[in-house]
């Protein structure tokens, strides 16, 4: 009981100090310094109409590369924990098969989910959305497949091949920019095209599609690991 009171006072102090600190930054005011530059010059420099996409992929593309590798590390960590360090497996548990309506419905809906995710990450430079969101939507489509058909397996080697190809595409496109006369990583060497056309803004859509495939493969791998752990058939392959 005394611990709760002490920690509550501690947390109240933290909240109060945060309130006092943020009194210097009033809500809704224009506080931009670098953002102004991106908003004013982003369309002319990258050709993407979604400025968030041009910041994520172009201006801070190196940051995104690091982020994708962190994602790979986490997915590999889950796989290592469950498959290498895991204890010996218990018996396969009884699975309650889902009913007819769920199976047929998921079979109808699954291609549409894939189509929607693909649409999201192909139009990432024009509309809200992009590789991360589209990849997550595709991974949730795979999740639906797992829930409807408990015996489903995803081909793990094919999954890791997709993931590796996407990562290699990102890095090769970035390194190719070093050969250009401007010589910077992720230099946009393809023609910009016109604003709001699908084939515009150079290499940004290609990189976002690669990110989408990579995120989808990572999350599908994580879900596959955990579902294997539930059904207890992971060791058989």
């Amino acid at each position, binding site marked *: 009981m005394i611990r709760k009171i002490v920690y509550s006072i501690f947390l109240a102090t933290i909240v109060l100090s945060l309130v006092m600190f943020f009194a210097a930054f009033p809500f809704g005011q224009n506080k931009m310094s670098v953002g102004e530059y991106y908003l004013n010059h982003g369309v002319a420099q990258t050709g993407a109409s979604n400025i968030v996409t041009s910041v994520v992929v172009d201006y801070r593309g190196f940051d995104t590369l690091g982020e994708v590798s962190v994602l790979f590390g986490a997915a590999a960590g889950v796989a290592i924990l469950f498959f290498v360090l895991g204890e010996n497996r218990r018996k396969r548990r009884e699975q309650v098969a889902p009913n007819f309506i*769920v199976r047929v419905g998921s079979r109808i809906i699954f291609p549409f989910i894939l189509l929607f995710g693909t649409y999201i990450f192909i139009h990432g430079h024009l509309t809200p959305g992009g590789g991360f969101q589209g990849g997550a939507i595709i991974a949730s489509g795979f999740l639906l497949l797992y829930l409807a058909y408990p015996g489903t397996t995803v081909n793990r080697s094919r999954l890791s091949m997709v993931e590796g190809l996407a990562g290699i595409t990102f890095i090769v496109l970035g390194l190719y920019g070093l050969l250009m006369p401007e010589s910077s990583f992720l230099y946009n060497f393809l023609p910009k095209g016109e604003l709001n056309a699908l084939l515009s803004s150079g290499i940004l859509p290609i990189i976002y599609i690669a990110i989408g495939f990579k995120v989808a493969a990572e999350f599908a791998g994580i879900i596959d690991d955990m579902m294997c752990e539930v059904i207890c058939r992971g060791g058989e392959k």
Partner: protein
Amino acid sequence: MRLILGYFLLYFGAIFLFLGAFGLIRLPDLYTRMQASTKSTTLGAFASVLGVGILHPDWFVKCLVVALFILLTAPVGSSALMRAAYKTGVPLDERTTVDDAKEFFGEEEKGEAK
């Protein structure tokens, strides 16, 4: 004409959504509440999305697709939820007279799976 049809569909959908929420409060047990919240909400959302599509002809195709997905997903999800609830043994209201699911699932199965 277009305006009349669009607003009629919007109000029709709103009435059904209200009835669904009302039934969620008033009905006695889980199964009847689920029925109220699924059937009337599916029809209400369908009608109101179509009404928006008719009021704004630019969005008609998008609204049609949204309505189609509502029609596809909501009954599937609610049927899975109901089945799980019946299998885990959520009790029926004591005024219930007909229980067809009992012979369909088998009597020994009820309350056993967890």
